[in-house]
């Protein structure tokens, strides 16, 4: 069955189909309609979950930590400032090895106030031990929500799925709604190894001395690396069950390309059009959409870039003092590779500014024109 729905509702429906048992959240634009829809689904009985309204995002995540430790499938959603407020609890959730799933509707952080799309909020949480997935369409949003629970529960780490403010969150598209029974067999009931249980009392996250702390951190790192393999498997299985799969990255018309654009989220859709137009004109341009950001799919990317001469990364985010985060991650990932193409870094579309085909064309031509990347990220689409 297809249904016209906005990206936020695609998240809500994905959560419903995944049969989450506890949802705790605090409203924030542009995320609000995710939990609004979920509260409706809970209220009318379509989703049998405990919906816990709280007074802040910090509490929302604390609530999820408790619920997940009690052994139930747990979900929350937030945006921008709300995610920033959650920061402390994000570390706790991963440290406690809790498979919480969260949707982040990417929104620029103040000051100054801005409610529009930008990925700096989620990318600023890249060191918190959460897996991060970035989505391009409402269908991908719904599908990734279901996948996220399966990945999280397999590796016992929390997963964050990201969607662009307004471009996805508030834009309606046709979305294929999977059958519940198929989702149920793809994603069985969560069975934790350990859970809070008065009949079998344990202390969770108790004080751990230097003699043991590093070992716990090492286990998280191992799980995170394993998460890459699990994400690939889960996506494969999803494809078998539902006929759709997305990969950890998606290479679009990269065959024989001398220049590859690297994008994430909705900019990818615009990039597809730009690549098609340039290919029509005989330019050998391709595009790679990065879907899994944490853990970073270095091997897959290197494989795609093998024959490219140049890579141009479009970042809708900024790490001040460094530049675009995706570009920075790529450079770091490849620096020990003997052979790899030079990585050009561009910043575009901050605070919800449109990244139009002209902006992407400009990036392509600037990259062709330069023989070697500028040291700093180049800002494109600025007012002149």
């Amino acid at each position, binding site marked *: 069955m297809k249904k016209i729905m906005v990206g936020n509702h695609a998240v809500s429906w994905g959560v419903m189909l995944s049969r989450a048992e506890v949802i705790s959240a605090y409203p924030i634009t542009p995320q609000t309609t995710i939990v609004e829809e979920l509260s409706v689904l809970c209220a009318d009985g379509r989703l049998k979950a405990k919906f816990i309204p709280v007074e802040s995002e910090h509490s929302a995540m604390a609530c999820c930590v408790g619920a997940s430790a009690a052994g139930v499938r747990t979900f929350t959603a937030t945006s921008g400032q709300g995610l920033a407020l959650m920061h402390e609890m994000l570390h706790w959730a991963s440290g406690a*090895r809790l498979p919480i799933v969260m949707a982040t509707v990417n929104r620029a952080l103040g000051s100054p106030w801005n409610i529009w799309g930008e990925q700096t909020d989620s990318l600023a949480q890249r060191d918190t031990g959460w897996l991060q997935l970035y989505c391009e369409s409402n269908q991908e949003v719904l599908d990734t929500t279901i996948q996220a629970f399966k990945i999280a529960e397999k590796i016992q780490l929390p997963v964050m799925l990201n969607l662009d403010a307004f471009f996805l969150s508030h834009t309606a598209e046709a979305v294929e709604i999977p059958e519940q029974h198929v989702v149920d067999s793809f994603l069985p009931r969560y069975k934790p190894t*350990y859970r809070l249980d008065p009949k079998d009392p344990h*202390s969770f996250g*108790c004080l751990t001395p230097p003699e043991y702390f590093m*070992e716990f951190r*090492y286990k998280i790192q191992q799980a995170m690396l394993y998460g890459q393999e699990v994400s690939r498997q889960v996506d494969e299985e999803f494809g078998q069950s539902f006929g759709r799969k997305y990969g950890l990255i998606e290479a679009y018309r990269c065959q024989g390309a001398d220049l590859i654009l690297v994008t994430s989220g909705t900019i990818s859709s615009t990039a597809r059009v730009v690549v098609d137009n340039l290919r029509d004109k005989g330019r050998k341009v391709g595009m790679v959409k990065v879907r899994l950001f944490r853990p970073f799919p270095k091997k897959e990317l290197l494989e795609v870039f093998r024959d490219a001469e140049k890579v141009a990364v479009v970042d809708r985010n900024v790490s001040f003092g460094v530049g675009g985060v995706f570009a920075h991650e790529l450079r770091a990932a490849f620096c020990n590779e003997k052979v790899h193409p030079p990585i050009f870094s561009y910043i575009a579309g901050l605070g919800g500014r449109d990244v139009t085909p002209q902006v992407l064309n400009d990036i392509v031509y600037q990259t062709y024109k330069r023989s070697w990347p500028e040291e700093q990220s180049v800002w494109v689409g600025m007012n002149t």
Partner: protein
Amino acid sequence: MSNQIIFKREEEMPYLPISLASMAWNKTGNWRYLKPQFENKIPPCNEGCPAGQDIEGAMFLIGEGKVLEAWELFKEENPFPGVCGRVCFHPCESSCNRKDFDEAVSINALERFLADTASRQGKRLSLKRERRKEKIAVIGSGPAGLTCAYHLTRLGYGVTVFESLPVLGGMLRVGIPEYRLPKKTLEEEIDQILELGVKVEVNAHFGRDFLLSDLKEYQAIFLAMGSHRSKNLGIPGEKAEGVMSGVEFLKDINQGKEVRLGKRVAVIGGGNTAFDAARTALRLGAKPFILYRRTREEIPALAAEIMEAEEEGIEISYLVSPVRLMVENGKVSRLECLKNRLGPADEDGRRRPIEIKGSNFFLEVDQVIAAIGEEADLSALPKKIGWKENVILADERGATKQRGVFAGGDIIQQPRTVVHAIGSGKRAAIFIDCFLKGNQWEGLFDVLRIGERGSLSIKRYLQGEEERRPLSNKTVRLKDLNLDYFDYKKRKKMPKAQISKRLESFAEVNLGFSEETAREEAGRCFNCGVCNLCDNCYIFCPDVAIQKQDDSQVIDYDHCKGCGICVEECPRDALVLVEERK
């Protein structure tokens, strides 16, 4: 206690940080610099009660449905909860911390409730005592005398009470009208005292029928004759027919004598006697009115009594002083009055009335009842007892200057209330016991006092040194409570008889609480300073160092780190944080 688990390799460890055994081996108590301790303090109501009743304790018991236990708790200190539950001016309620939060707990009505419940169920006191050979004479059977007799009997002494009237109870019996204090209630509580073995001699008028020198067989004497002599108005015509004192009037009515009043009855005065007299006259079919020389601000009667009098339609004229009674055919017929204005405050802090010259006016009257105050008649006492202006100068024990002679109630320097009389009777019993045993008494106040306002606990006295829990010297105030844990809740009001019903008879005006109302009202008590096992400390302790045992909470000092959260989260200031001494 479990042992520590040692992991040698990373693979041995669970994937998530979870305890696999108890951490009790880790005695975190030695990290402590501050130490929480349970320490019950003084609830302000207990401090405020001159009779020294454990009010907080009774509120807790009523809330638990243990009404008879609450009654027994009150009875430990005061033989008259049924009386006090009706006529006490309840300083406990004006001390109640709840009054600055929403409204004071309705303690007075609850005291009555527990006494009424005990009465309905025919509850009697049980008493274990060893008999002592000494005998004590108590002169006067009012609340002070009978309370003293009650406690002395419980202490094992043989007590004889001498009463000048044919009936027992003093002012409780002859001064307070039936509609405020039913005779049945009073008689029951007196009977319970007599059942302990107190002897009484009625119609034995001190000064007329016997003197102190006739009491040689007694090793101690307690003087509690009360103040029964009305003060004179001091105006021309007051000896005429149709003029009587309030005390005399109430005494006659309360003893069943017939009193003929005219229609228009002027009651002069603003104390409880004046209001009792006016409301009694109303019930006898007269049309009484009250004349008071100051304003409603200064009036000494209980607020509730003034309100009830107004409800019943009694007119109260303020700033009026009588100056002359005019007599016609040998009987009073008109009352000449002056209007006053208020001048500066006098010694007791109340503003003095100043007569306005030429403001004279006349009132037609059939009867005048003078109720401007009572005084003691101490003329039969030897001077060496030590008294001045009809007041005995007793020391802090209630002892007079004559060895073995103690005094209490309205004849000593203290407020003239029922509950102060009860408190002084109890105090005398304690120190008579000390006197007869030849014990030191100086240190006793520190051990027995409940707060700083003079109340003493005989329960503590009877306990003996080893059983007594240490007594805090701190009275809990509103600022000491963690008010986050309390909800606003309206005070329950006692139902009253309809006004039309009241005027037809001397039936009781206030009708008492139902059990449900009583439990709900008692549940409003903050239990200031006293652990009521609310479990907040248990819930909040991050180290599970509060342990529940039968009827108490115990701190596990092996593991308490002294963070103080229990102290902070205690709603009622029943925990303190002290410096750890190692």
